Structure formats: C-alpha cells, structure tokens
C-alpha cells in the first residue's frame, strides 16, 4: 500500500509532462492564449496535492535490488544481512556494517583511527589537491580512510580485523591502508589473535604513486610475522576486489573465502575487453569462477559467514602454540648451538 502511495506522485508527473510535450495545454486554454503563451516554457514536472503524503515516506524505507529490481522493506533487508531474498544478491557493505555483522555486540575496539592521508607526491589533478579530495571524501562518506582495523569478538572468539570501505576512494590502497594493515598484523602477533581481512578495493591509490605499489610489499611482509607466530590469516574477498589488493595480502592467506558473485581479479573487465577485443564469458571473474579455477577455498554466503569463520578460528587456534622457526637452516644452527651448549655444561 505504502509503496503505491509513494510512487503515485511520480506517475502523476509523467502524465503532466507528457501533456506538456504535446503542447495541448495552451491550445486548450483557448481564447486569450497569445503566441508568447504558446512558447512559454512549461515546467517539466508539476507536483500534485499528495506531496505531503510522500514526505511521510522516508527515502530509506525501501531498498531496491540492483540485480533483480526487487523492492524490499529496509528493516526486512537488514534482517537478511543485506542479501536480496529473491535473487540472493549480496549488497556491498560499508566497513561499519560488516563489522556489525561479524562482531559480538559491543566487542569491537578500533585501532589506529588517528592515522590519516598525507600527500607524498604533492599530487594535484585539475586544480584539486589530493589532500582536499581525501578530506572531502572523508566528510561525505563518514569514514576517515579506506580501511578500519581493530579487534572484536566473533562468536566469543577474539580476532583482529581489517575491513575496507569502498566508499572511500574505491578503498584504494595507499600509505594509510598499508600502515594500518601492517600495524594490525603486528598487534595480532603481540596479542596472539588470528587475522581476518575483508577486502573490496579498486586497487592501488594512483595519487600516492609508487608509495602505493610498495604497500603491496609492506602488507605481505607483515603477514610473514603472523605466519611465524602460527596465527592464521583468513581473507574474505568481497565485491569488487581488483589490482594491487588482489595481487598482495588479500590472496596471501591460509584460507581465502569470497562472497557469492563477488567480482575479483587482477585487471578490470573493461581493460581486458579493450586489450583482447573479445567479449568476456558470462560469470568471468566471479567468486564462483575463481572457485572453479582453484583459486579460493570457498564461496561463502553471508548467512553462514559467522559460523564458517567461527569454525575456522576454532580449528586453527592452539594446534601447536609457539613460534615457528623462521628458516630450517637457522633452526638447525640454533639447535646445534643448544646441543653443544648442553654437552659443554655436562
């Protein structure tokens, strides 16, 4: 009912504008209509009386599925974890929404929120400075940078998380992104926490040039620390994930999960089409495509995400506590030293 009421003014507008285009109104007015009246610009849309009724319906009461166009009542939509119940489309999530879905209530503690963008290159595009753009984006999106990191409890289990927010410059990876991720790895090691990264990203941040490329090395280097401490890195790839993020830490993981139909790849579909000049096959670069090609462990629907993650954390934790020796060669040398020390003692 509400839905019909909400749309009826628009339908009325369409009718009115059609009426105008036909140009019949002045003519029908008849007698006193001058030529000037005939060519007077008519408002394209006129509002009808039930405008106030429309204002009673908040903008976000209904959500439309971009895939199947199904309209869903927002409350219902949120209850279904922002998955379309008709076609199964997984809506893109803001970092805060993702964290809310994963964390036990009130368990999330953010790390390193005070790190913000700098402008190492002095980058200006068409008169707009990079820093100004970043600040504008931060204000508009309500997120300070492309990633949020912190610790939370998932199903009662403590976990370090790094989650991207696509609304901040396409969650592109620059220095702040890299630094937050590296610090999260180091803290995870200090606190003995498994690491979950949730990635959606357009790739490297152009505005930081080669600094951005080097974040690929920095983030993967930080993951070696996690490995030495026998702490798992679980990577969840979400829609869309491309370029330098897919080609670095996000695919260097003990377990790689992806949400259904998430697009994941190295080069974007437009680039590939331009270069190869052929139509891409249906389903190209989807999570299911990656799964078929043996690139990821699982396509995990959002509804079973917490359950799956909880089980993984359980299974990986405490198998063999303690640090993994860095290198076999180093290990041999060290054990020799210990052995020699023992004989000397006797």
């Amino acid at each position, binding site marked *: 009912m509400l839905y019909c009421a909400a749309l009826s003014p628009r339908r009325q507008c369409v009718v009115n504008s059609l009426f105008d285009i036909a140009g019949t109104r002045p003519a029908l007015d008849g007698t006193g209509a001058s030529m000037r009246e005939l060519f007077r610009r008519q408002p394209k849309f006129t509002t009808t009386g039930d405008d106030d009724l429309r204002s009673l319906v908040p903008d976000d009461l209904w959500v439309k599925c971009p895939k199947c166009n199904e309209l869903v009542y927002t409350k219902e939509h949120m209850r279904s974890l922002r998955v379309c119940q008709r076609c199964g489309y997984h809506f893109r999530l803001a970092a805060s929404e993702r964290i809310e879905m994963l964390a036990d209530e009130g368990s999330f503690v953010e790390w390193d929120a*005070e*790190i*913000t963008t*700098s*402008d*190492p*290159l002095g*980058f*200006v*595009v*068409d008169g707009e400075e990079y820093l100004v753009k970043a600040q504008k984006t931060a204000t508009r999106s309500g997120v300070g940078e492309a990633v949020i990191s912190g610790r939370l409890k998932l199903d009662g289990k403590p976990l370090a998380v790094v989650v991207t927010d696509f609304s901040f410059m396409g969650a592109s990876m620059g*220095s*702040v992104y*890299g*630094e937050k991720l*590296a610090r999260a790895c180091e803290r995870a090691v200090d606190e003995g926490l498994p690491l979950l990264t949730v990635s959606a990203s357009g790739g*490297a*941040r*152009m505005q930081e*040039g*080669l*600094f*951005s*490329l*080097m*974040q*690929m*090395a*920095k983030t*993967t*280097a*930080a*993951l*070696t620390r996690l490995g030495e401490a026998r702490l798992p890195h679980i990577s969840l790839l979400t829609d869309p994930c491309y*370029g*330098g993020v*897919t*080609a*670095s*830490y*996000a*695919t*260097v993981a003990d377990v790689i999960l992806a949400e259904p139909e998430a697009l*994941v*790849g*190295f*080069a974007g579909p437009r*680039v590939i089409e331009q*270069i*190869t000049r052929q139509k*891409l096959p249906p389903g*190209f*670069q989807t999570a299911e495509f990656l799964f078929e*090609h043996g*690139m990821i462990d699982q396509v995990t629907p959002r509804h079973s995400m917490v359950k799956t993650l909880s089980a993984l954390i359980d299974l990986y934790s405490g198998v063999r506590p303690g640090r993994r020796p*860095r*290198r076999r*060669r*180093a290990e041999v*040398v060290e054990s020799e030293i210990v052995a020699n020390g023992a004989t000397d003692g006797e």
Partner: protein
Amino acid sequence: MASSPSANGLTPWDRVLLARHANRPHTLAYIGALYDEFVELHGDRSDGDDAAMVGGIGRFRGRTVMVVGHQKGESTRENIQRNFGMPKPEGYRKALRLFRQAEKFGMPLITFIDTPGADPGLSSEENGQAFAIAANVFAMTDLAIPSIAVVIGEGGSGGALAIGVADRVLMLENAIYSVASPEASAAIIWKDSGRAADAAAAMRVNADDLLSFGLVDEVIPENPPAHEDPQATIVATGDAIERHLIELDEMWKRGATGERALLEARYAKYRAMGEWQEAQAVPTPAAIGRR
C-alpha cells in the same frame, strides 16, 4: 599539469619514451655481457614456459648467482613471442621456482625489471595472475638470500614488483617505475589515456624523484642514454650490482644470525615505506609522519 623539465632538460615524458626505447638493452643483453657463464632455466613445472620472463644460473664476477628478469623482444616478431615483456602467471611461477632454488643453494638473487605490466589477458585471469604476483611478493619479503633488483627500463605496476621486493633496488637514470603505466593512470584519473604525459609528471615516475622518496636505493647514471651506448650502461650497472652484493654479503655471511639480520633489514625497509599523518595525543596540528 606541469611537466617541467629536470636539470638535464628532460621532461618526465621524455624519460618514459627513453625507458621504452626499442634499442635500449634488455635483460638478456645484461646477462650476456655481465655473466661469464649462463644457463637459462625454463618452465614453471606446471603450465608452460613464459618467454616474457627469463631466468637461470650464471657466474657473475666470480660467483654463482640466480638471475631473473622480464624480457622484451628486440623486434616486432620477437616482441609478439615475448608478449612485449608482460609475463603471465606461468612466468611469475617460473620466477618463484627460481627464487626458491636460489634460496636452497644459498645463491644471491639478481633481478632485472623491464615490463609495461603483468599480462592483463583472459587466460591470465583464469590462471590466477593476481595470486601468482602476490605469491612472489610474499616470497621475496622472506627469502633468506641477498637480493638486488635493477629497474633497467619500464617498471610497470605489480607485474614489476613481483620480482622487485629486494634488499636493494637500483634504477637506471632514464628508467621509470610506477604503480600503473602512465596510460593506465591517466585512464583512471582523467578517464583519458591520452593524458599519459600529464600522469607521468604527476605520478613522479622518474628515478631521481623515487630516490628522493627513499623508494629506490641508488640511481645508476646513463651517460649517454642506454640505447646510445649500451655497453657503458651495462658495465656501470654491473659495477653497482657488485658493490651492493659485497655490502649485503658482509651482513649475510655470518651464518644464521647474518641471515636473520638480512631478513630483519629487509622487513624494516619495506615496513617503513609510506607517508601518512598521525594526530598526536593532543590533536591539531597533525604531525606529518615521514617514515
């Protein structure tokens, strides 16, 4: 966008053109001139042999080293065969195989970077291009051998970094190194790949800029540009590699502790890369943290 010429009168875009010059020496030219013996090793033991990535063992100034590098063609025909120096996943996996082998035998690793980028084709995506690059970057951060990467021409994107995470990164004066090719960057920034020259200037892709940022360790001068006197450039490159190799050896040869010191130094090097602002406990003004 200002593309102001540098001291020697070259704009950033001039440098891009020099880096791509057809007569510029490519990896096999360096290997041929600098190595007394060289045996090329082929194949990734899984999918095939990628001609855009070459590698093998050789003797460099008296010691056995592992060499890996992108290879462009010397002619159009060869360029097609070598995919213009754009490796596919099998190329990166071949490189990874050679990294591991170098580590196993305790050989230093030397890489030559010269690629517009990793191959962006359909089959590369199917075979996990991003995964292959990530695996190499990850492996290189943790290889227990000294490594030196030299950007001899184009250092394009993740396709370059996949053999570029080394203890020392050297760069020829007229080489470029960028997060994406100037054309791709322009397409992303302005939706117009025709503004590549502007992108090259804005992204600071030149060796002297990158040295000032601390992202590369040394710039090897080209007097004159490499394509005019390849031999001089190659010898200067060899001398620089040798110098750094001796330095790294000092650290590395001290057994297990040396190995650890080498890995710690490499970790610290890449860990420190980046620039950001960090508000102090008392906010404003934000401290600009140059790391």
